[in-house]
């Protein structure tokens, strides 16, 4: 059931138990109370039509921002729910805001659907909802509609969140994965692999205490700055699951070009390098939640880099490589050692080596 719109005048329900039960998914008073108390309290009151099953918008508002609607959805199933640098709520908002922003869209409205495992603490849910609300307001977006479901214990892992977002793309922009051309520069906005490493550490089954925090952040402002400084930008994508290596391969495939990156220019935190070394992982494949790969024409590379470095989320921005004219759609890395190796798509999950 949708919990937006809500009625401003109705007295808020109050949840008076400490954990979620199946009754909270039953559609009755318990559910209303949960939605009111936990979600609506967190998300605040928005200018929506009362008592309708959908959020409603004035198309003129979109049209004022651009000529195309951007529409994206993603599900978040992270374990643990809270980790250094973020939590599932922040992740769910940042992820969708970034998916809009990388296409050049101005993020405007979000929806969230939450699947809750019976037994989850109400306080925990509250923290997640507050984190979502805080992140959304920082991103200048609003969470305007949503849904909750409660499933029996064991049917999901604590909390799953799906967020969907809409935004508008300014008429001047036409970014695309097919637009990379030989000679273009490949940029990233900072240190790679922090999120993946932080999550693996936070799971605690590594017996490794590494002070790595997730890079989880909303990148719409940074991206806005890049697009202003380098209007010829060809393509931007956030390097989430599968890491930078996967994005580069997508670009090589999509544009029918090859990419050469320099190991020595690729920014990776010493702790993450050491962590990968111990576990036999490759940081290029580790997930990021606040990192983008940007393809720009060579003459705009410096402007784009400078714009990134002016933003707190782009301090360690670097030019890691270039598009080459080789048409095999290959990603190669020049190792800092002087050799070459291929950076292929990852097969399955990265599994640590034994020796």
């Amino acid at each position: 059931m949708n919990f937006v719109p809500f009625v401003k005048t109705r007295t808020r329900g109050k949840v008076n138990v400490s954990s979620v039960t199946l009754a909270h998914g039953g559609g009755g008073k318990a559910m209303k109370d949960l939605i009111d108390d936990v979600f609506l309290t967190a998300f605040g009151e928005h200018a929506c039509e009362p008592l309708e099953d959908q959020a409603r918008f004035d198309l003129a508002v979109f049209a004022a921002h651009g000529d195309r609607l951007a529409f994206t959805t993603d599900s978040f199933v992270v374990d643990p729910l809270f980790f250094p640098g973020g939590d599932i709520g922040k992740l769910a908002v940042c992820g969708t805001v970034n998916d809009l922003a990388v296409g050049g869209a101005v993020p405007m409205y979000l929806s969230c659907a939450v699947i809750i495992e019976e037994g989850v603490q109400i306080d925990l849910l509250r923290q997640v909802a507050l984190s979502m609300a805080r992140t959304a307001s920082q991103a200048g977006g609003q969470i305007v509609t949503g849904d909750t479901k409660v499933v029996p214990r064991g049917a999901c892992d604590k909390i799953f969140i799906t967020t969907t977002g809409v935004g508008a793309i300014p008429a001047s922009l036409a970014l695309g994965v097919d637009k990379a051309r030989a000679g273009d520069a490949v940029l990233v906005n900072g240190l790679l692999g922090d999120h993946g490493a932080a999550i693996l550490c936070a799971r605690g089954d590594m017996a490794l205490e590494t002070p790595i925090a997730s890079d989880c952040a909303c990148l719409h402002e940074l991206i806005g700055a890049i697009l202003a400084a380098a209007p010829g930008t060809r393509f931007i994508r956030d390097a989430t699951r599968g890491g930078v290596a996967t994005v580069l391969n997508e670009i090589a495939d999509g544009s029918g070009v090859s990419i050469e990156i320099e190991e020595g220019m690729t920014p990776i935190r010493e702790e993450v390098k050491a962590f990968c070394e111990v576990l036999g992982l490759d940081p290029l494949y580790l997930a990021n939640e606040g990192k983008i790969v940007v393809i720009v024409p060579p003459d705009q590379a410096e402007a784009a880099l400078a714009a990134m470095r002016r933003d707190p989320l782009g301090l360690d921005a670097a030019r890691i490589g270039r598009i080459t004219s080789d048409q095999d759609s290959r990603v190669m890395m020049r190792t800092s050692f002087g050799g070459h190796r291929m950076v292929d798509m990852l097969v399955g999950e990265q599994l640590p080596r034994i020796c």
Partner: protein
Amino acid sequence: MKYVDEFRDGEKARVLIGEIESLVSGMKLPEGRPLYLMEVCGGHTHSIFRYGLEGMLPKAIELVHGPGCPVCVLPMGRVDDCVAIAENPKVIFTTFGDAMRVPGSRKSLLQAKADGADVRMVYSPMDALQLARRNPAREVVFFGLGFETTMPSTALTILQAESEGIRNFSVFCNHITIVPTIKAILDSPGLQLDGFLGPGHVSMVIGTAPYEFIANFYRKPMVVAGFEPLDILQSIWMLLKQIAEGRVEVENQYARVVPSEGNNAALRAVAQVYELREFFEWRGLGSIDHSGVRLRDAYVHFDAERKFAIPNVRIADPKSCQCGEVLKGALKPWQCKVFGTSCTPETPLGALMVSSEGACAAYYQYGGQKRQAEVV
């Protein structure tokens, strides 16, 4: 990382490559072929690909990727045994990550997990023992795998379990030992090898003395090598120097880590817990006498093989697989009939395609297609 960066210095690499080139150019090469140098250890294979070393060496040197990835040489029947143990509802089956994807005849451990078996990835056998402490009502089985590198930690874990009186912990022991393996390679007919890069981690435990027979009986030089790219280049240079000077010795490039006499404490634990098996089956290489170990009778209560009914069926490798030839260095991975077609990392037919240390997977990931294109 500071300590490690020293061994990844591209400048030093160029100097070394220069010296290797000048050594090779002054040398009399075998007729009609390059010099074949085998790295026995999967860790070396991995570094060679990761740093792109092959492409930096002169054409007159060809690296042959040996059998040193314990995951790669695991016979299919043994994977089936793992799956059978894991499917016992009482069991929590624990394993190192890269053994999860190795195909069995029915399924891999990863598939068994998806089908409901309680399979968990651990980073050391001590993690498995910890699981046993926390789950007294379950049977925790650790998949003991690897050469002398990992053998002592399994042995020490068993000794620890013994001293704590833990009875719901056991080991499915598939540890293997390096020396008989190298011997089997040296004995294989028609073998053309000019020298060996000896395994660094294994030697940390056993020292360098056990390799003397390679120089003395088989007249092949060996250099025990570290895993950093400069280690490997320097070891190749040392091997070439021996060949150029007509010496045949076992040298130790990795002396900062490998004591020539090995690690006594580790060796004692190994001797206390394990005994050699008569035979042990290897994927692609067939049975090699005395190449595997099992738990001694004194530790029978920690032996998963005796605690659980396991099928223990020999499964022949798929016919199209040429893993054996690749392991012996007779074929390059991309020369295998099914490389990159029916055998890929997504659908591996042979184990060399599974582990990141497997030569086929390394070729596939770090440049396989290019090689393949050059061949066809």
